[in-house]
C-alpha cells in the first residue's frame, strides 16, 4: 500500500455525461467515476430512462463528455426495455454516425436475488480483466427489487439484509476503484410513515413525489452504502418532473426540472435553483 499525494490524483474526478448538458451542469459534469451513485424515485419517473441514456452517452469520446467505454447493465425488473434502448440508440447514431451501434456495447445480465448479485461481482471482476473494450459503467436497475420480497421484518432477517447491503456495496466500491468505474444503482421509494424515519440529506421538508411524502427504500443502512443520492420526483398533475441532489460529497444541494421526450431525458434551463 502506498500513499498517494492528492496532487498526483486527477485534479477533477472523471465524470460521465448523462447525455444532457443541463443535467450535467446540475451534477457538476455528470456521474462521477470511482463512486456509487444512487437514483431514487417512484416508478415511471424516469430512472431507467436516465440509466439507458447514461450507458449510451458513456460511449461518446471524452471530448464530448463520455468515457469511450462499454457498460454492464444488470436488470432485476422485467422485461428489459429493449425497444426503448433501440429507440435511444437510433437517435444517438443519427447524431454520431461515426460511432458503432451503441447496443453492441451494452452488456446485459438479469439477476433474480441479492445472493445472485453478490455472486456476480467476482464474475464481473474476471470479465473486466479480460474484456477487449474498456467497461466504465455498471448499472443496477433496481437494487430495491432484490430486497423487497425475500426478507421478513424480524431482527435476524434485517441484520442479514444489512450485512448483504454492505457486502454488495463493498464489492461494487472495490470494482469502482479498481477499474475507475461509475456505478449507478436505482432505488424505489416507500411512503413516509410518521416520525420514525430519519432525515437523510439536504431536502429539509422531506421528499415529495406525486403529492405523497416518500423516502428511499431499504432504510438507513443502505444509505451509508452509496456515495451520492439523487432524487427524482414528479408533480401531482404529472406535468413537471424534477431531479434533486439529496447528498453527494462533491455537490451542493441543487435541483433541476426535466422532461422525457422520444430522444431521451432533458433538463429544463429555466428553473434550476
Amino acid at each position: 500500500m502506498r500513499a498517494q499525494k492528492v496532487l498526483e490524483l486527477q485534479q477533477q474526478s472523471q465524470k460521465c455525461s448523462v447525455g444532457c448538458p443541463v443535467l450535467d451542469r446540475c451534477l457538476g459534469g455528470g456521474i462521477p467515476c470511482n463512486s456509487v451513485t444512487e437514483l431514487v424515485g417512484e416508478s415511471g419517473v424516469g430512472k431507467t430512462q436516465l440509466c439507458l441514456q447514461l450507458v449510451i452517452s458513456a460511449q461518446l469520446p471524452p471530448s464530448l463528455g463520455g468515457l469511450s467505454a462499454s457498460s454492464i447493465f444488470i436488470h432485476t425488473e422485467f422485461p428489459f426495455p429493449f425497444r426503448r434502448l433501440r429507440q435511444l440508440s437510433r437517435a444517438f447514431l443519427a447524431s454520431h454516425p461515426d460511432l458503432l451501434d451503441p447496443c453492441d456495447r451494452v452488456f446485459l445480465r438479469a439477476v433474480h436475488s441479492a445472493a445472485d448479485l453478490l455472486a456476480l461481482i467476482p464474475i464481473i471482476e474476471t470479465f473486466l480483466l479480460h474484456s477487449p473494450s474498456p467497461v466504465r459503467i455498471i448499472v443496477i436497475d433496481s437494487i430495491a427489487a432484490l430486497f423487497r420480497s425475500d426478507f421478513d421484518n424480524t431482527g435476524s432477517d434485517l441484520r442479514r439484509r444489512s450485512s448483504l447491503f454492505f457486502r454488495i456495496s463493498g464489492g461494487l466500491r472495490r470494482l469502482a476503484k479498481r477499474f475507475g468505474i461509475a456505478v449507478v444503482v436505482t432505488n424505489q421509494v416507500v411512503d413516509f410513515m410518521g416520525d420514525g424515519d430519519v432525515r437523510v440529506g439536504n431536502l429539509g421538508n422531506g421528499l415529495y413525489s406525486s403529492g405523497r411524502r416518500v423516502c428511499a427504500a431499504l432504510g438507513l443502512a443502505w444509505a451509508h452504502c452509496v456515495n451520492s443520492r439523487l432524487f427524482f420526483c414528479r408533480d401531482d398533475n404529472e406535468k413537471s418532473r424534477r431531479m434533486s441532489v439529496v447528498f453527494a460529497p462533491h455537490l451542493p444541494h441543487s435541483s433541476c426540472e426535466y422532461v422525457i421526450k422520444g430522444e431521451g431525458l432533458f433538463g429544463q434551463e429555466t428553473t434550476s435553483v
Partner: protein
Amino acid sequence: MEVGMLPISSSKRGKLLAAGYTTLDAIARVSPTHLARDIDVSDGEALEILNLATKASALERPNGTHSAVVGGGQTAWDMLNDEKFSSYITTSCVDLDNILGGGIKCTEVTEIGGVPGIGKTQIGIQLAVNVQIPREYGGLGGKAIYIDTEGSFMVERVQQVAEACIEDMAEYSHHFHKDFQTCDVKMHHNNIFENIFYFRVCSYTEQIALINYLDKFVTENKDVKIIVVDSVTFHFRQDFDDMPLRTRLLGEMALNLMKLAKRFCLAVVMLNQVTTKCIEGSFQLTLALGDSWSHSCTNRIILFWNGNERYAFIDKSPSLKAASAPYSVTTRGIRNSTSSCKRIKMM
C-alpha cells in the same frame, strides 16, 4: 537545550533572557507578534528566532516524543502544563470551535458520526486542509493523512475548500499584519494537495494493515498532524459473523490509533456511521459498531439535523462539557451556520 545555543546575535539572546525566555520550548510556544513585543524586535526578526527555536527543539527530540513519556513518569503538573500548550486544529466554524475548546485537539482520538449527507466527509476534508494553515496564521503548518474507505473523497471538493481557506488567510494577513510581508500568502492549492497523503482502502484487512504501517509512515513524514479515517465503519459492517472477533480487531485498531496520536502529538479523527438500536421497544439512532466501540475514542461528536440546520453535539469527552452548536456546509467548506451569523449581526 538552552537559549544560549541558538545561532542569533548576542544582543537578541540577551533580550530573550531578560524577557524570561530561558528554554526553547518557551519560545516555541508564543506567537511571533507576542515575541516581537516582549523582546522589542521587528516581527520579521521574531519569526526568524521562532523558526530557529522550533527547528532546534525538533532536533532535540528525534522521535517527536517527550522524554518524560518514555521514562514513564510524568506528574499531573507537567501534564497540565503540556495541556495548556497543546495545539488545536480549527474546524473553520467558530461556534463548533468554541464548544470544542478551540478545535480538534492533537494527541486525542475524536470520533464524529452522523446520518448520510450530514457532512462527515466535508468535516474530514476541511480538517485535512486546515491542519496546513501555517503557524503565522495560528495554524499548525502540518500535513494530513486521509484514509478513505468509502470512495467519497473528491479532489475537486478539496480544491474548493483549499482555495477558500487560502482566501481567508489572505484576508486575515491583510487585516492584522499590514507590515508582515514575509508571510504574505504564498500558498497555492497545489501546495495543499501536496500535503495530503491519500490512502484508498478496499477491505478491512487492508485497513488494519495500513493502520499498523502508519507508525512507520509517520516516523518518515514527521509533519503529519492529523489522521482522518473516513469512515472507520464501512468495512467492519460487511463480513462479520464472528462479532467478538470484530470487537477485538476494532479495539486493537483504536488502540494503535491512540498510540499514534500520543506518540506523534497528532489528532486522529474517525468518522462513523449511524444505525438504529432497539431500546425498550423503541428504535433510537446511535453510532455504529456497538457499545464496546464507544469506549475506544476520547471524544465523540454526533452530528444531527435540527429543523433545517445542522448541529454538532459533544456526546462524550473527558474535558469538555456536553454542548451543541450549529454549523453549515457551504461551497467554501464548513462555516458558521447562517442563522447564527445573522444573530451576531443583530447584536
